[in-house]
């Protein structure tokens, strides 16, 4: 992918840039699809979902697995309906319980991603903290929270990430902690950078931190991504857009919290998490 050259053009710039993505010149051929194609698909899917909500239809809390603007979903979503298992009719399903983690699985340094190497990583130091609860509002206690992320330049410490942004010898980008008795977690890290990916031409992921969470039941397992408020890349990103309900998208965005910021040290972001799914302690009135 060659970036367009602005300096080499001898002709005067066009008086106005096309405002409508539909009117933009066609992409180079052969080549990846332009953003405008993805934008139109997202708009159509969001519009259809809004119509369905307005008609009183269900408001999906999670992305549908068949979300075409994210091209990798094409061959990786089941076509058959899922088989439903009712926790009330099958209260001893193994999945209504889940794995346990404890002090042997964690070290004290795991929650501070800025102290895992001899030196300090580059970037904006941040604290990310919040509470993990189940759908009934009960704190999820003593459970494992894992995070991973790109460094401040938008590069993952992963061999397959070939984005030509610098690796940071002082930053791996992996953290773990156990929630406390109130369901709270906290990490110190640096704010990750945006990075390009190959879903379509000039595609960039908004900055995000990957989260993996366990609840009291395997059914409550969650892997997701936390985004930062006000990111200009939100409207272009098919992964965030896979949540067709704007309220669901909002639940993936943390909030700046001055109470979590530490004076002359780090900025603070709050992100509370609610795990879906029934557990063995689920009762009728909580459904």
């Amino acid at each position, binding site marked *: 992918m060659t970036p367009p050259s602005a300096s080499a053009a001898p002709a005067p710039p066009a008086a106005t840039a096309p405002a409508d993505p539909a009117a933009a010149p066609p992409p180079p051929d052969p080549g990846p699809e332009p953003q405008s194609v993805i934008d139109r698909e997202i708009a159509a899917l969001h519009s259809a979902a809004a119509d369905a909500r307005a008609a009183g239809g269900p408001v999906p809390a999670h992305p549908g697995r068949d979300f075409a603007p994210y091209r990798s979903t094409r061959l990786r979503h089941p076509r058959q309906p899922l088989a439903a298992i009712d926790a009330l009719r099958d209260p001893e399903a193994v999945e209504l319980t889940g794995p346990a983690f404890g002090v042997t699985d964690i070290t004290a340094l795991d929650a501070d991603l800025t102290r895992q190497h001899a030196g300090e990583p580059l970037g904006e130091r941040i604290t990310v903290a919040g509470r993990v609860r189940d759908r009934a509002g009960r704190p999820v206690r003593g459970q494992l929270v894992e995070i991973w992320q790109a460094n401040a330049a938008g590069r*993952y410490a992963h061999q397959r990430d070939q984005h030509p942004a610098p690796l940071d010898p002082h930053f791996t980008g992996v953290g773990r902690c156990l929630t406390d008795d109130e369901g709270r977690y906290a990490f110190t890290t640096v704010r990750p950078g945006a990075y390009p990916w190959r879903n379509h031409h000039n595609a960039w992921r908004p900055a995000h931190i990957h989260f993996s969470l366990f609840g009291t039941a395997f059914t409550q397992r969650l892997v997701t991504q936390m985004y930062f408020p006000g990111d200009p890349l939100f409207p272009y990103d098919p992964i965030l857009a896979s949540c067709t309900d704007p309220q669901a998208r909002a639940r993936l965005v943390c909030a700046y919290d001055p109470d979590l910021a530490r004076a002359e040290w780090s900025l603070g972001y709050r992100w509370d998490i609610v795990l879906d799914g029934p557990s063995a302690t689920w009762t009728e009135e909580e459904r």
Partner: protein
Amino acid sequence: MSAPSAPHGHQGVPHQPAPAAQTPGALAPTPSQTIGPFYGYALPFPGGGEMAPAGHPGTITLHGRVLDGAGEPVPDALLEFWQAGPDGSLRGAPGSLRRDPATGAVVGRDGVEFTGFGRVPTDADGRYALRTLPATAPASRPAAAPYIAVCVFARGLLHHLFTRVYFPEDTAAHAADPLLSGLPAQRASTLVARTDGERRYRFDIRLQAPDAGGGEAGEETVFLEFR
């Protein structure tokens, strides 16, 4: 390039993040997002697939491939396994990712405790292998068909998928299993591992049926939804 219009707030998300309560006392869940391609240095851990206590004579090997809708291997899937303890306990035990306090490195399980939890990434050929104890029915329901619960994550999969591995020795119990007995035989068969040698079982996971169908060999795995 202009931003697609958003009905609530700008930039595609409303300004007020809200764990909106849809019904009294019920919080709206945090949505799932894909695990992406880069979890490999974060989530897999040494011994993640070695669930059985070291040298346990009852150890079984469960292995197979994860395949996509074109029948191609999925090289970037992560599988998690959860099963009852040998005594039918569903409490699990800590220590799956036991750490060295001196270096912080994962030193693996202690080889004694059965934690009930396993985590295995697929390799470049979409293969995985798990060494564990035979599945056990929960202690409270000893006659139930034993199974291992599986959770599948992958790049391109926006929301994880649950499935189950049942075992071919337990055919009689399968007839009474609420899940298996409610499925057409060809669908149910995707949930039963096949014997593949002594104490060895094969269980492939097909995320999507190929376009042209493909008969039993290409049958899409049954995935589960818990309500």
